[in-house]
């Protein structure tokens, strides 16, 4: 037993998990421990997120699970031409989740989920080499999702529900590479909007060809957060009619892309389960981040992103070691949605290899403690963002990036 855990641990140490763009794939400790698979795994109310159709197959009448992750992500940047270098000092991200399911009848279950699938928290040192693109950003989106799940028979079920999203964004960057006030303080703008809400939906199906084989599919719709009349706060702007940057309001749209997941799981040798998930995230909706300032004399900020749709390949394994312990491990490969030349430092994501592990400790019949750990490994990459313009001239921002993230998580599950 001891040996097994150590092996799992070291296997994990060479792997990483984190999602492309500002997708944060941390929607449950059990699933994350298995490489964030779960569209076809029937083991907890995390199914509210992964596949509502599966809720109706849960053994217990009432399931509630909640937890959080601590995201420690780090970005290092350097430019060998000038020696410029920077490291982010981002605060720990704390995505949360809460899922509950209630099996009303043998064929009907209800569920409620609260989770945070999109977000970003990146803090560079103010006035670093890329400060004209970003000093810091904090993006949050909370999804609230009631669901219904019903089975046609023991082989087929459907589920789904509406999603209410409330989000906030706070973003600061310098106005350009050089503008300062008389004392040399860099002119910058902070945009801030909170309580931005919108609606979407989720629909899913689960198919069980045999008792041991499960196949699932989930589609979560695109949700666009339209920030209206957010605050734009300009600081250190010189007193000159040539720089008419007075505080104003802004409108901006930030898309939470649609995501489709298909996958399967297979139970074998009584205590083992393997799972494969395939995610397709429809990032091509994120074409440009446009900030429309209300004041007429302040030029709007257009930031090309031109993301492409991306895929994630997930693999997980679960082993019911003893009555008390369930062990899990997983791996996923996360394709970056960022195209060459669009590598912006607020989400510097290249392809990543992600390694996960975790366990559940059963404390009595009703209570479980779920723990997981994720390490996201990004290769060192030379990249540039070529769509920043000064006086109509494109000024690429290039350099070498090295990113990683590690994410411990802890949760509780209660079932009746």
């Amino acid at each position, binding site marked *: 037993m*001891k040996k097994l*855990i150590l092996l799992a641990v070291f296997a994990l140490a060479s792997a990483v998990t984190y999602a492309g763009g500002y997708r944060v794939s941390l929607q449950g400790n059990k699933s994350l421990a298995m490489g964030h698979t779960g569209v076809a795994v029937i083991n907890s109310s995390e199914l509210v997120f992964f596949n509502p159709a599966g809720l109706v197959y849960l053994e217990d009448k009432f399931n509630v699970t909640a937890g959080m992750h601590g995201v420690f992500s780090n970005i290092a940047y*350097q430019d060998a031409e000038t020696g410029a*270098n920077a490291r982010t000092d981002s605060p720990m991200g704390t995505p949360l989740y809460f899922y509950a399911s209630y099996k009303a009848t043998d064929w009907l279950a209800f569920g409620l989920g609260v989770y945070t699938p999109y977000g970003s928290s990146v803090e560079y040192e103010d006035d670093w080499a890329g400060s004209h693109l970003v000093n810091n950003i904090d993006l949050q989106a909370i999804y609230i999702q009631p669901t219904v799940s019903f089975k046609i028979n023991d082989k087929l079920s459907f589920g789904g529900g509406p999603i209410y999203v409330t989000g906030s964004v706070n973003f600061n960057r310098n106005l350009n590479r*050089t503008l300062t006030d*008389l004392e040399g303080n860099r002119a910058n703008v902070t945009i801030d909007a909170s309580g931005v809400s919108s609606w979407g939906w989720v629909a899913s199906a689960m198919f069980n060809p045999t008792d041991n084989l499960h196949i699932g599919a989930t589609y979560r719709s695109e949700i666009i957060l339209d920030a209206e009349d957010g605050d734009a706060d300009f600081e250190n702007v*010189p007193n000159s009619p040539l720089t008419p940057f007075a505080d104003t309001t802004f409108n901006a749209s930030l898309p939470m892309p649609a995501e489709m997941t298909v996958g399967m799981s297979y139970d074998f040798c009584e205590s083992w389960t393997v799972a494969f998930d395939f995610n397709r995230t429809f990032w091509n909706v994120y074409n440009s981040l446009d900030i429309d300032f209300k004041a007429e004399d302040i030029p709007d900020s257009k930031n090309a992103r031109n993301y492409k749709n991306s895929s994630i390949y997930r693999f997980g394994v679960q082993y019911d070691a003893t009555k008390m312990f369930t062990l899990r491990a997983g791996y996923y490969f996360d394709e970056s949605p960022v195209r060459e030349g669009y590598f912006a430092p607020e989400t510097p994501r290249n392809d990543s290899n992600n390694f996960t592990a975790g366990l559940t400790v059963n404390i009595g019949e009703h209570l479980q403690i779920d723990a997981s750990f994720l390490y996201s490994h990004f290769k*060192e990459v030379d990249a540039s963002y070529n769509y920043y313009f000064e*006086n109509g001239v494109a000024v690429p921002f290039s350099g070498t990036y090295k990113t990683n993230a590690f994410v411990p998580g802890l949760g509780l599950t209660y079932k009746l």
Partner: protein
Amino acid sequence: MKNILKYTFALLAIGFVSCEPEFDSPVTDDGFYTSGTANLSKYVSVGNSLTAGYADGALYITGQKNSYPNIMAQQFAFAGGGEFYQPLMNDNIGGLLLGGAQIAENRLVLAVDANGNPGPVRLEGTPTTDVSNKLSGSFNNMGVPGAKSFHLVAPGYGNVAGVPTGAANPYFARFASSESATVIGDAAAQNPTFFSLWIGNNDILSYATSGGVGVDQTGNLDPSTYGSNDITDPNVFASVYSQMVDALTAGGAKGVLINIPEVTSIPFFTTVPFAPLSPLNPDFGPQIPALNAQYALLNQAFAYLGVPERSIQFSMSGPSAVVVQDESLVDISAQLTQVLIGGGLDVPTATIFGLQYGQARQATSSDLLVLTSSSVIGTLNSDRLAQLIAMGVPQEQAAQLSVNGITYPMQDQWVLIPAEQQSISTAAASYNATIETLAGAKGLAFVDARAALARVANGGIAYDGGVLTSQFVTGGAFSLDGVHPTPRGYAYTANLIIRAINETYDATIPTVHIGNYATVTLANN
């Protein structure tokens, strides 16, 4: 269970410790960049206002932070460079006080006037840097605004008591190690392992910016007899320059020498056109027929005296050249007066015309009008007006004869005539020969700033956000005084010097992106 927790936490601990992403070869590692055969641990820069980071007609903190030595020192830090201290001013207003009285003007900023036109104005405010507040300690940046070559070896140049009389320099007085210290002595006393020396600009520049009112002292080997606007004798320059290089290299230091750019590379001399008078100007255009009628009389006399090239005429259809005083012309005042009297002009008027136009001509493309002349051309010269009235000329006629550049020739200080330009470029060529020869002889790095600034002035230098040119205000290279660079201009200079050091000493010091450095500062008072 206990063991599992133990191992789990052990793993977490490992994760936390090793969580920082590491590059395969971090730029911050020793040895990523190298200083080659140079040792950058103690860098001292010696020079004048350019070295100090002077810009916009003043010295102020942000300008000093963007001085080329400071930019270089920050890059040197990647290759073994040490701390770099500068004698920072007290504020970003610029200007100097001496015992509470202001002795140097505030910085220039780009302001927009009531009509929406941007232009340089002095920033309002009271400076807080008092020369009599002596700074303690030694400073790596020994750039002293206003210094000429021979000043750097002159004892007492930092004696605050000598500041009011002009015998000492207020900027050096702030940090000279003693009343009798020399700039070069204080530099050498820091035992630099590496130095830069850029001096000699003011040996021609003050002559140039003053429109050549000074004297070309070539042949006079005693600088103590020079006026502030004179050209330094090339032998004096060579002698003190080699003395300074010897002092700086005495401890085995390596270094870099930078030569003297042409004055014609800087907007102070290239911004005001020789023919700025437009017939569309409502204050000037309608006067042209009357002016031409008056000058016709004078032109006949010029023709009669065999100098028809001095004729003055304003065009009704295009821009006209200003009238200038050319002290290199033969003074024909007396003959002119006689001829005008012979032509029927009354004696007092003829006398005044004779005196006013005895060395006058219209400017040509070979003349360089200084930047500060732009606010003078076409305005009434009140001194001249008073003179003429004192001579008995009726007020109205006196006023007509006192319009700068139109009826009253632009005086010596506003225009560099070709003879003056020749004096400057002859001296500069000689200084530059000295600098390059010494660099070669001593195995020091050499920067041809003259050629580099000529490139900025002729076509410009492409960078990652546009083209750096010497166009006044908009070109990006020169600050609002038209002489000193902007931070971007200084960054370009720093890159030139770094490249020369890398080449000479097999070093790999990184350069900077000049687009990250600012140009002119905007502010309305």
